[in-house]
């Protein structure tokens, strides 16, 4: 489904801030793979997701998605293949537009946008049904401006938006990190449900070791722009936090540095 072949990216080349963010990184995902991504700050996790999404071009390498070579395509031209939820709940929705308008925009992700009316009656009914499933009472707030909703609600909406038009690949970039623990758990549970329901191929970055182990069928660990650990299936299910932390120290040559990781 996703085939990343030796991509590299260096930010600010030739300056004092030069940073090698991705180093000849390769990754293959089978259809239906739900991969959690962990690693310290600056390991290149978000950079990898941004490279896949096409936020900027990579320096070298190739990215194939569902048989399409998307390497030369800018972000908006590969959006039809990819659903995304960002870390910042403000980023995934248009605050001054109604909830129903946001959903209608997402439903046309990557489609030609013509002069047909954006919000139709049948679609509104469909949105109402799908919002009901979220269990957040949002089905009664279709006409509310999204900016009036809470961070957790907006993140749940973004998740729904990412899956309204079924993506070939779902990218979750620490999408629960900015939420309070209770809301985060809810949004995570919701992510699981949506991924399973549609059998979405998914990459999910998280800072939380337990979440990384508990969710998905495969786990990768990154360090300095490379994948240093890739476990799946049975082996992944039986991982413990302790083992992961030890593995990191062994493979990266340094202890996993953040408290957030150790405490989580």
């Amino acid at each position, binding site marked *: 489904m996703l085939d990343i072949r030796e991509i590299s990216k260096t930010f600010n080349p030739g300056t004092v801030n030069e940073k090698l963010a991705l180093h000849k990184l390769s990754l293959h995902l089978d259809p239906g793979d739900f991969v959690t991504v962990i690693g310290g700050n600056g390991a290149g996790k978000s950079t990898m997701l941004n490279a896949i999404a096409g936020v900027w071009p990579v320096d070298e390498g190739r990215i194939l998605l569902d048989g399409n070579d998307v390497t030369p395509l800018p*972000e908006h031209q590969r959006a039809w293949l990819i659903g995304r939820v960002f870390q910042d709940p403000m980023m995934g929705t248009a605050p001054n537009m109604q909830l129903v308008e946001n959903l209608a*925009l997402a439903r046309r992700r990557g489609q030609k*946008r*013509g002069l047909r009316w*954006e919000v139709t009656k049948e679609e509104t009914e469909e949105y109402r049904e799908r919002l009901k499933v979220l269990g957040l009472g949002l089905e009664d707030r279709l006409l509310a401006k999204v900016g009036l909703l809470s961070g957790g609600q907006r993140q749940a909406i973004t998740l729904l938006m990412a899956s309204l038009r079924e993506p070939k690949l779902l990218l979750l970039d620490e999408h629960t990190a900015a939420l309070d623990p209770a809301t985060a758990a809810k949004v995570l549970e919701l992510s699981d449900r949506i991924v399973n329901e549609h059998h979405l191929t998914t990459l999910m970055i998280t800072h939380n070791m337990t979440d990384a182990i508990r969710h998905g069928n495969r786990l990768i660990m990154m360090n300095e722009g490379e994948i240093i650990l890739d476990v799946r299936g049975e082996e992944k299910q039986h991982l413990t936090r302790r083992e992961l932390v030890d593995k990191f120290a062994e493979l990266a040559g340094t202890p996993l540095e953040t408290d957030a990781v150790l405490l989580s």
Partner: protein
Amino acid sequence: MSVSSYFASLSLLKLLRNMPGGVSQGLIWGIMALGIYITFRLLDFADLTVDGSFTTGGAVTVMLILAGCPSWAALLVAVLAGMLAGLCTGLLHTRFGIPAILAGILTQFALYSINLRIMGMAANKAVSVDKYHLVLSSRNVPLAILTAALIALALVSLFYWYFGTEQGSALRATGNNPAMSRALGININRMKVLGLAISNGVVALAGGLMSQYQGFADINMGRGAIVIGLAAVIIGEVLANAILKRRLNFYGTLSFTVIGGVIYYLVVVVVLWLRLNSNDLKLFTAIVVALFLAIPYWRELRISSFAKFRRKGAGKNA
């Protein structure tokens, strides 16, 4: 002149006589404000092209009418000319990577030369309503009000429809959250260029109407158009929120933008009636716009500010 004789000299009748003329000109500014609303509010793009494209609209209209073109057709060509100007600004911004405000200033600057060329190197071109059939004229104010109001209504309806379509919604999304828009497959550069073209088309239409109304096009007729447009947009918003409150929808917002233009110009009529120096008008307008733009910011400050701690004498050693 003493204060009492100054007031005695003001004739209320004269003010009332000037009101209809104020309404008709206000409607034309209101139509222009619709264009500015698209860039300023929907695209979040402060477009300074309009000072130039307003004049372009006037110049094209007058020259075409003088050349024998029907006045309504001249207006259509003016719209196209305005759209071309917007396209220029859009390309300067998206293809040349020039910041929004500077891109607009560059086009506006260039348009001064172009407008002069359109008018055959004359700073002023008259088109007499006696010789030509015009869409509207200050000679017949009631008819001018009716015509301008109908055009405004048609534009408000057209925009209400367009910004409810898939394409129009994508344009609004671009202004509201560009990162999200890209992630949803919207080509935000194309949307910005499109929005600028539509906006300047409307502004040029207003310029064409103004030139017919006043019977001439002038190289400086667009000076300050952006500020007048902003004033209209802001006055409209304040009024709409006060009157319609929660019932305010997009149709209301657009309508009140036009009404904002009318109110603005009626204030101008009053200021002139008070025999204040008309040269101070631009200063007056700028102050009003600055104050209204500041209000949301100040409101925010009331909720969270450093100053409230200063008041209690904190900061000095406790």
